[in-house]
């Protein structure tokens, strides 16, 4: 298995903060699809007037172990309706 590189395009994907649920509730199909639960959302550095996050981004956790645990199934790429995720497998 080669090196896995996860590329996320924040411009195509839009995950707003939901004040009711206190987390993003829109989409999140990629993190549901990941069989190893390697993907997670985190707030971006932008802050609203009350200090709450404005927008979230998707990122890959445990990156140095991703070569070992990411099954390279590309399900995250498949389910993304905006085409915001790319996974590059080198070697």
């Amino acid at each position, binding site marked *: 298995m080669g090196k896995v590189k996860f590329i996320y395009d924040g411009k195509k994907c839009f995950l707003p903060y939901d004040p009711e649920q206190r*987390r993003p509730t829109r989409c999140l199909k990629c993190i549901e699809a990941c069989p190893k639960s390697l993907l997670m959302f985190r707030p971006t550095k932008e802050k609203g007037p009350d200090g709450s996050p404005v927008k979230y981004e998707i990122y890959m956790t445990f990156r*140095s172990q991703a070569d070992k645990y990411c099954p390279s199934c590309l399900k995250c790429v498949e389910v993304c309706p905006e085409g915001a995720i790319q996974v590059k497998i080198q070697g």
Partner: protein
Amino acid sequence: MCEFCRKHAEEYGKWYLNPKGYSEEFFRKLSIFDRILHRQPRKVRELWEVSDAAWYPLSISKTLDLVDLAAKPFIGRIIKIIGNMIAVRGHAGQVVPLEDAYKIVELSESQALFPCMCKRLFKGEDEYKCLNFTPAPEFAEKHPRGWRVKELETEEAKEKLREFAEKGYVHAVFWWCGAPQVICICNCDTKYCYAARPRLWYDIKNAYRKSEYVAEVDPDKCSGDIPRCGNCVSRCQFGAIKIRDGKAAIDPYKCFGCGQCRFGCEEDAIRLVDRNTHPIAQRLW
């Protein structure tokens, strides 16, 4: 015997069975180290504020980046040592079997179900399966943005634990701000657990310690009839059980002693034995 029991168990045998761990004292006195570690406000209300999922993930993602460094060859060793230290002083846990989870529920004053933070972050859904004890529910109520919790009676809590055990979730008792203070029982699916994966993938031991027990198979009772049975294999979240020579065999190096395999066994062939008496597992925690 693991280091927490040696330090904190006194005459009760296990650290989490010591009633001192359920008192509210620990919220009052925090050392400077703890306050820096949790950027700790003295007021408990604020303690719950930092655990609000909307604000917290940024620091979770930073912590995860740090944990990730543990895989690196040289820095990794230092990160592991620091990680183990922080886990003891911070928020980490130990696996407990269902019987001990019942005892913990009886020792605590009030119980409430919280949504599992790990599932919220890694699956994007709320599942009420983290059983928090006094004083957590009171503070959750006072929380400015209102944590949604479900308060339970002791019997209801036990009923819930049994339900979670049937689903195959591993019970783990967690401390907060130092080892003997019990704050909750998490019912984990290790697939998306934030505490179990540093242990399983990076070997940060104090993040998720093995239980005081280890599972053993009675070869006379086990039928090992794979197409019909084999529940124990699928129920083990740690991949410790394999069928060898027509019998289930438990790898003591991998077994966490959660006891979930017992509930799948039709022949009642698996039992938990004390880890301290096991020849191999007694050194593994």
